[in-house]
């Protein structure tokens, strides 16, 4: 089975975040493999270990995004493709999806695994666009994935349980953080990653024209400050009922 996992390098979630003047995310700081992508890589590796095959990491980003691919390779993925092009700086979701689709199409994978959204941009739009561009069925927010023959079945996370969804491969699956605990790379994995291939391609290699941006971020506003909480005075009789009523209204119980 040939599995493509899309990965992205993002600003380190453990460091302070910032925006450029044009509301794109500042990337002049410590960057890491998107923690959300580690779940996708882990699931890809689990499927490969069970059924054989190959895990290919595909990323779009500046040249240093190679480090994010390397990390996935040291976890055990087989090879990587880095789409890098100056014209892609600040690319919106559609252009990103087009570039990824072109690189992935050339591999004809059985399964494409994405995180549900990136840690930094968090639009969540790239995986559905990618599925459309690849003409694949999309199975989203999976907390479990099984592949049997040419069928992929997922448990789709919902608010109060899960749905079982099935499709023919090739298909695209987005996975949640609950799917599998990502492994730590081993030192041997790090050393082995040295000799694994990371192919670098540009827009012209993929036959893509940049074109007009489909979306522009007009403004980024701070979230509203949290309102003061509701104070329940307990007179010794109805305090608990009042608190329960508040919690039920808020749908937390």
């Amino acid at each position, binding site marked *: 089975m040939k599995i493509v996992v899309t990965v992205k390098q993002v600003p380190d979630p*453990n460091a302070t975040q910032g925006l450029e003047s044009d509301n794109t995310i500042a990337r002049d700081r410590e960057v*890491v493999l998107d923690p959300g992508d580690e779940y996708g890589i882990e699931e890809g590796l689990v499927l490969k270990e069970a059924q054989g095959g190959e895990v290919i990491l595909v990323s779009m980003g500046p040249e240093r995004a190679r*480090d994010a691919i*390397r*990390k996935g390779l*040291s976890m055990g993925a087989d090879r990587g493709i880095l789409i890098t092009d100056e014209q892609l700086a600040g690319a919106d979701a559609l252009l990103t999806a087009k570039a990824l689709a072109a690189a992935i199409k050339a591999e004809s994978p059985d399964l494409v695994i994405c995180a549900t959204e990136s840690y930094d941009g968090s639009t969540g739009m790239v995986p559905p666009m990618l599925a459309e561009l690849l003409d694949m069925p999309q199975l989203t927010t999976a907390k479990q994935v099984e592949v049997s023959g040419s069928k992929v079945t997922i448990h789709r996370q919902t608010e109060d349980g899960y749905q079982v969804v099935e499709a023919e491969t090739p298909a695209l699956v987005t996975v949640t953080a609950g799917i599998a605990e990502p492994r*730590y*790379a*081993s*030192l*041997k994995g*790090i*050393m082995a*990653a*040295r000799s694994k291939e990371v192919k670098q391609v540009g827009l012209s290699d993929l036959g893509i024209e940049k074109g007009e941006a489909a979306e522009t971020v007009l403004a980024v506003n701070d979230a509203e400050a949290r309102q003061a909480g509701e104070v329940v005075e307990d007179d010794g009789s109805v305090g608990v009922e009042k608190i329960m009523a508040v919690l039920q209204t808020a749908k937390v119980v």
Partner: protein
Amino acid sequence: MDFQLTDEQAAVRELCRDFAREVVAPAAEKLDREHEFPYDIVRRMGEMGLFGLPFGEQYGGAGGDFLAYCLAVEEIARADAGVGITLEAAVSLGAAPIHDFGTEEQKSELLPDLLAGRRLWAFGLTEPEAGSDAGATRTRAELSGTEWVINGAKQFITNSGTRISAGVTITALTGPREISAILVPAGSPGYHILEPYRKLGWHSSDTHPLAFDGCRVPEANLLGKRGGGYGQFLHTLTGGRIAIGAHSVGLAQACLDAALAYAQERKAFGKAITQFQAVQFKLADMAMEIELARTLVWRAATGYMRAPESSGEVRKLAAMAKLYASETAKRCADQAVQIHGGYGFIEDYPVARYWRDVKINEIGEGTSEVQRMLIAREIGAG
């Protein structure tokens, strides 16, 4: 000159940083409080390959270099100094002498388990009355038939008494002014691992006094040349000191991390205390000294990689790195507690633990005074 890490070194650092932050740090407070040895963390570090990091693949090592190993020690110590020293002692003092001086039989018998972290090996140099003055060693080993008969005692021996401790390399007098190294497997008759110490810090590490009471091991357990013990442990301690330098940098960084985070949150006179120059200057000095200490450790480590026979220049750099980094860590721990004020004196915050943990860095693997003696000797004074 280029201070860039290689891809592999950077990857080792990132891996260890993630593992330390996600697995080691959350366990540290309990390990410290309950004086507990972290078997599960050690097993996982072993599976990742950390115990075999700077060794070749022949005996199961990862084929990394010495600087990558120092980066690993720094990151683990940043989360828990006791776990950091468990790794450092297992690699620099346990496995390295066997790797560097062992026979083929000794290496193929012992190293696979040690480099995988399944077993730990200890190094017994210090004695009750021979610390800095290692020449004053009194433990004796005499050949009786085809066995060494060992009598004496060793003091403050890390990794000697865990459930996975496999043995200890000791230094012993095998003749007049003749010091040799001998491998003593756990369970050898007459080898006694005594009750663990009640330590000021490093509570998650394992430390015992050892007694040898007519202890018998095969003649073939001699490590390296008979009479070569002194030269061998000087070599072992050179690498060990650089690694302790890295350990100290990790501890110092932990102090800065904690102090900065606290200072950004803590308010006094209506604003965060990071707005006060008195606090800013402390933090700036900590950051600068940590960077200096780290640079010196990297320089010593790259020197050691080029000249593992430990030239005078490398011995000097190793002493400087160990000395400067440990004293930096001590100052950083002091300032981190100071910035925390009264909260620094109670165990609700990690800086009290850092303060207790750091003192031994100025003592173990050569005191600050011994490092200054070595540096003075290497620059031609005395």
